[in-house]
């Protein structure tokens, strides 16, 4: 195998993980973590210049390239945030240097697993990579070893493995469907061959396979009613991991779902997967929107907001068609950027205040203007107010829903408004009003969070034509 940019995207994190596992000094490893993430990001960017032919195991096409660039970019900014975050964790003694060594190595293993899942041209390999990513995050969620963290990790582990087991069964069924047409062995798991010949597969088998895949990977996406692990895992793990979970891992599972949706769409006799996705998406959206009202923990609240947005995105892809797919893709990108920016902010806020309880923080715009206004901006973006990027994507989703299935747009709009109300209500008490809790100056790096917010703002005002063309192309591909 020749060493090219495609290989680099997975080799750099793997090598960095091995190196970080042996580096005892946490300051150096934090920097190395950033450097490795930066190199991976550049490798992903360099693929823009020209993509190699699809190999037997690896593949880069229009669809996954969007995901790869997004993953490596958020991976980079999160590593920068993580460097300033862990400084504080060491000072307060919540983490020891030994745990940090483990943490940094695991961070790169996670990056490796996610990139591999995205880049794999083999549905078996993709499954293995997603399982690896799940196991890694389970360990990271439990790293604080408090009661809550252990419970969250255990719940995540059990639900995650059930999901991943169902997904494997679905993968085996896809192989069974493909084997008479494509032939035995690796070929019947190679994505590019599968999609070419999908029309000849046994439709009934594909249908059952998709149900298992939807439930399996859907658990990882955090779709209700399989979402129970998500709020706990987000709230109890280290905040950089919450950012990566919300911003990236959910996307990776979603990507797997999209791949299989394409496979079903290529078979004329298979069921239309859209309606299932629309239902699950709407249920998640409305459920999460109402759940937002009762949250007392700030990270848990934004975790529910992630469920809500994954619901919106799955809904958009379920509706299908060039416009809704475009909007779904844009919304996914915007959500990743915004949600990780929010978690960066929340991480620093929780460190300053020494708690994650919403009642014990207040008046942040007075005591910590940079953090407070950052949070305000982030929430304004996440609820979809103009002029930020999410307004545009949500507007496109709602209008395409109205155009295609008007009565489906009602619960969608209801969910959006309910979520807006809940988040604005909470934001009001956190950001404004009487200052509550300690007001020591924050030692924070504001660059990652404002970089994300700037990008989201820019996307809301002006989307560069090449990007639009690219997304439109992917949207057409998704059918």
């Amino acid at each position, binding site marked *: 195998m020749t060493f090219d940019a495609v290989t680099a995207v997975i080799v750099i994190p793997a090598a960095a993980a091995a190196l970080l596992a042996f580096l005892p000094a946490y300051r150096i490893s934090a920097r190395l973590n950033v450097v490795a993430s930066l190199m991976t990001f550049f490798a992903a960017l360099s693929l823009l210049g020209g993509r190699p032919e699809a190999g037997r195991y690896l593949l880069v096409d229009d669809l996954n390239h969007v995901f790869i660039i997004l993953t490596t970019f958020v991976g980079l900014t999160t590593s920068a945030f993580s460097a300033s975050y862990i400084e504080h964790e060491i000072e307060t003694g919540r983490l020891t240097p030994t745990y940090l060594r483990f943490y940094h190595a695991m961070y790169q293993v996670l990056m490796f697993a996610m990139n591999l899942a995205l880049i794999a041209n083999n549905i*078996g390999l993709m499954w293995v990579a997603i399982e690896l990513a799940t*196991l890694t995050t*389970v360990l990271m969620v439990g790293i604080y070893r408090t009661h809550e963290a252990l419970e969250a990790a255990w719940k995540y582990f059990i639900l995650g493995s059930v999901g991943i087991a169902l997904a*494997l069964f679905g993968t085996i*069924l896809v192989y069974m469907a493909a084997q008479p047409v494509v032939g035995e062995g690796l070929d019947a798991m190679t994505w590019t061959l599968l999609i070419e010949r999908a029309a000849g597969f046994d439709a009934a088998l594909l249908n059952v396979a998709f149900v298992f895949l939807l439930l399996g990977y859907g658990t990882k996406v955090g779709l209700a009613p399989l979402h129970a692990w998500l709020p706990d895992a987000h709230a109890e793990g280290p905040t950089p991991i919450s950012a990566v979970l919300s911003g990236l891992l959910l996307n990776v599972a979603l990507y797997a779902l999209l791949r299989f949706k394409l496979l079903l769409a290529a078979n004329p006799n298979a069921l239309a997967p859209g309606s299932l996705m629309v239902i699950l998406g709407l249920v998640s959206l409305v459920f999460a929107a109402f759940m937002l009202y009762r949250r007392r923990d700030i990270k848990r609240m934004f975790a529910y907001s992630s469920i809500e947005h994954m619901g919106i995105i799955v809904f958009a892809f379920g509706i299908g068609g060039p416009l809704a797919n475009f909007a779904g893709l844009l919304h996914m990108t915007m959500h990743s950027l915004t949600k990780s920016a929010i978690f960066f902010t929340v991480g620093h806020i929780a460190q300053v205040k020494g708690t994650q309880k919403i009642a014990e923080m207040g008046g942040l715009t007075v005591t910590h203007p940079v953090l407070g206004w950052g949070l305000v901006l982030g929430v304004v973006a996440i609820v979809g107010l103009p002029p930020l990027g999410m307004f545009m994507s949500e507007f496109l989703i709602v209008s395409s829903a109205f155009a295609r299935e008007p009565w489906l747009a009602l619960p969608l709009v209801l969910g959006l408004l309910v979520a807006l109300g809940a988040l604005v209500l909470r934001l009001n008490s956190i950001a404004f009003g009487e200052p509550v809790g300690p007001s020591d100056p924050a030692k924070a790096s504001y660059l990652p969070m404002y970089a994300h917010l700037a990008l989201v703002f820019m996307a809301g005002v002006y989307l560069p034509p090449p990007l639009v063309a690219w997304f439109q192309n992917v949207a057409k591909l998704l059918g």
Partner: protein
Amino acid sequence: MHGLTFDVAHMLAGSLVLVSFLQLYQDRLTSLLNVFALHALVLALSVAWQAFAQGAPHLYITALIALAFKAIAIPLVLHRMIVRLGIHREIETVVGVGTTMLAGIALVALSIMVMLRVTPGADPLAREDLAFALAVILLGLLMMVTRRNAVSQVVGFMSLENGLVLAATGAKGMPLVVEISVAFSILIAFIVIGIFLFRIRERFDTVDVRALDKFRGDQR
């Protein structure tokens, strides 16, 4: 080829479902682990028979992994662990045995009805294997939801994975990559679980998951 080959494969896969049922009503951890070892043993035999029937020598490796790792190593380690934790006599079920068995029967009926209906064109051997495999997977899931003890949940998860291996070997010519990864993932899963059990023990002096449920972040 059909005739005896088919009958033996059928019998072994059927026995796996039967042993899954045996697991459902074991009310002590020690006996549960013994039955799990039997489960893995039947799986190993079934996989080995598939290797013979399909003329696929690489499947013998999968059978060997199932035998050495899941039928011998894991039960031994778990036995020692529960003795050390002093919980080898206890087990609690959330739902009664009768209800669980009825639910199990319903799940088997469901999986056979679903799988046989959608695979009329497939090879009969693969077809029945798949139906049985789905039954084993669903029974494993059932066990995970009806048990409260962390160790028995883990056993439920492992028997679920056994069902996956049965499905993977039933699918003719499924690449080796996947089988090894399945076995490997169990290894990883086990390590993870080991760490967790260790930590849970360290914190709570119990491996009862109910003790964990008290610490719900939102309801403090």
